[in-house]
């Protein structure tokens, strides 16, 4: 087997809240292969989001190591992590996190802009992606003028815009009704399969989790099921 995409070794993440120390993740060991579609399931507060943020280099572990494509993320500086987030990862959030003052098109361009593409390239690429999520005609709308499902599609287009190797989705259906949620998961999985991207999906919805190739269960900061490759 090739080098795993992710290799987590004894990853612990603790937070200080006042005098108390809260352990969000406790000694998690996990490997994820390229192209996998993984769902992380568990009750709220079980550490799902913390795990996802460590995978996406949004956070650093308190203990242990996160290897991505063989590189220890602990060893990378903030600037290199930013570059990794730009080119290797794509995030989809529960609350969409679109920039409210930018149109759908500009929100996609916001992710592309740091790559240094010129204005015409940005626009063309962003329009293509909006087309892929079925929102070509909504390009000039502001987030406030779009429905929840539409906003999440824009977020997916944005996440995929730089051609990342991993799409990290944190409760992507959490703020959507079940029909729309299903559509969004469908879109996400379909597009990532098409682009051969790895997907890590945090959810507490069994139906959503069921669409994944592998389901990880978490409770109290620990992985319940053995982290075995399917």
């Amino acid at each position, binding site marked *: 087997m090739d080098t795993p995409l992710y290799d987590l070794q004894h990853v612990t993440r603790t937070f200080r809240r006042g005098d108390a120390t809260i352990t969000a993740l406790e000694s998690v060991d996990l490997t994820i292969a390229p192209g996998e579609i993984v769902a992380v399931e568990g009750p709220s507060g079980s550490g799902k989001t*913390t795990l996802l943020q460590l995978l996406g280099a*949004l956070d650093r572990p308190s203990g242990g190591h996160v290897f991505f494509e063989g590189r220890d993320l602990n060893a990378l500086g903030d600037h290199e992590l*930013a570059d990794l987030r730009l080119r290797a990862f794509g995030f989809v959030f529960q609350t969409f*996190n679109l*920039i409210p*003052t930018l149109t759908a098109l*500009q929100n996609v361009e*916001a992710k592309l802009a740091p790559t240094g593409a010129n*204005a015409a390239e940005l626009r063309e690429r962003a329009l293509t992606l909006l087309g892929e999520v079925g929102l070509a005609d909504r390009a000039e709308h502001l987030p406030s003028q779009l429905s929840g499902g539409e906003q999440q599609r824009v977020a997916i287009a944005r996440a995929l815009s730089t051609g990342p190797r991993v799409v990290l989705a944190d409760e992507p259906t959490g703020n959507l009704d079940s029909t729309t949620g299903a559509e969004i998961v469908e879109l996400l999985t379909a597009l990532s399969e098409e682009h051969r991207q790895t997907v890590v999906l945090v959810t507490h919805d069994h139906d959503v989790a069921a669409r994944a190739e592998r389901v990880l269960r978490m409770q109290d900061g620990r992985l319940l099921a053995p982290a075995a490759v399917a």
Partner: protein
Amino acid sequence: MFYVRYLRSELLRRRARTILTLAGLAVGVALVIAISGVSRGLDRAQKTALDPLSTIGTDLTVTLSPQQNTGGFGPGGGGGGRELLDANQSAVTDLSKLGKAGDHFVHDFFLPGTQLTFPQKQAKQISALSGVASVTTGLVLSAVHQEGVVPKIVAKIRTGGDTINIRRRIKPPTTAEFEAMQKCFEKAGVGGGQQTGGQRVQPGGFGAAGGGPDSAAARKCLPARLRKFQATITTPEQTLQQLINPPQTNIKSSSYTIAGVDPSQPAIGLVTPSQVTNGHYLSSGTEALLAASYAKRHSLKVGSELDLNGTTFTVVGLVKPPLGGQSADVYIPLRQLQKLADEKGLANVVLVRATSSADVSKVQKEIEQTLGSGAQVASAKQVADSINGSLVDAANLSHDLGLVLALVAAAAAFLLAVLLTLSSVGKRVREIGTLKALGWSQRLVVRQIVAECLATAVVGGLVGVGLGIAAAGLVGVLGPNLSASTTTGGGDALFGLGQALSRTATTSVSLDAPLTVSLLALGFGLALAGGLLAGTAGALRAARLRPADALRQVE
């Protein structure tokens, strides 16, 4: 470019926040500009109005007050105070100077006021003193302009028309007289006394005696007593007294001050070219400068003609004369005023400039010693101290508070910029987290936020500069008039004349707020610095957060 479009969208689509930030910045900047402007305006007004001597190139003024002079500086008229009093009074009351009764007249009387005149040559004593750089003389007179008809004073006294009745009994002729008369008649051949004529002359009937050609002869025969009546009548003594009402006249009188300056010494004098606000300085001949306020009051302007007792002066300039002891409404060449006022070769003020400002008090002492007690030597500071009025209060206020106010306003503007920017950035922590999750580097995020803050600061600063200019303009239009006044001549109440002839010079300075480019730049710079600093600080703080923490922030 995406970043620019992002910036524009951010500012335009968060309109309320942008406007709030802009308004805060603008008001702060405008306050700094307006307050500093007003402060400067007061300073400037103070400098021109309250430091009157320095603007006319003078450190000291020397005048002679009417009292006995023991020094070598004698009054030109000689005779001291009494002389001065006479000069003032005769000029005021002598209507005979005006012309014939009933004539229309226009006349300007020039009164010496309470400053004694002295020969100009005596000023040389001062120029010889060490530490004196230059000296010039001037003549400041109170003038009364009168216009009207010379009054006629007519007293009508009607006398005569008395009837004097004298009653007196005349004794009839005595027998002896009668006989003598008879004889006389006979001798004259007048048929009197004889029976023949059947005529009998009666004593007392002599009036018609004869009736004929002999009446003359008959008259001769009368006793001397009856020939002529002689009596002395003394009429009763009477005093005629009539109240003569004041003559009816339409004389209009207005007073002003007039000063003679030496046009050949423009650097030092009662008025110098630097006070000319319109037109040009006196060259010579029959030219006049008018105090701007006087010109306004009398609707005169550059080019107007001024007739002073038959000499026509052309107004060549308007001046804003410095307040202080020796300001005037009308300035003409000294020689001309001397001629008009019949004060040839005389002056009543000497202006002295010391070679250096450090020498002023030394020179003042020297002059006082040389000239004795009659000479009053006033320094710039003393003149300034004699000025009072709202301008002084405002200037003092400005002096005390202006800097503090400007600093407070500047600090407030700066703080406002910082706070508004920080709050604006603080509300976007989550957005910053999102940008970082998207792969924006810290540098990019900071750059974006700082650019936004800078753009806001630039616009806010510009609006503030505009507001500040408008506010300063408004101060100029609506600003209160500050006045400064000084009274000269009234100091010594000699002969009670002091009051009457004292001159109160008042300068009214409309408060304005002069702005300079550097002041505007300062206000603008404050906004810019505040925005930049706060933007950088806020952006750095937010961008340093781990994206995970930033994302956790509740919007």
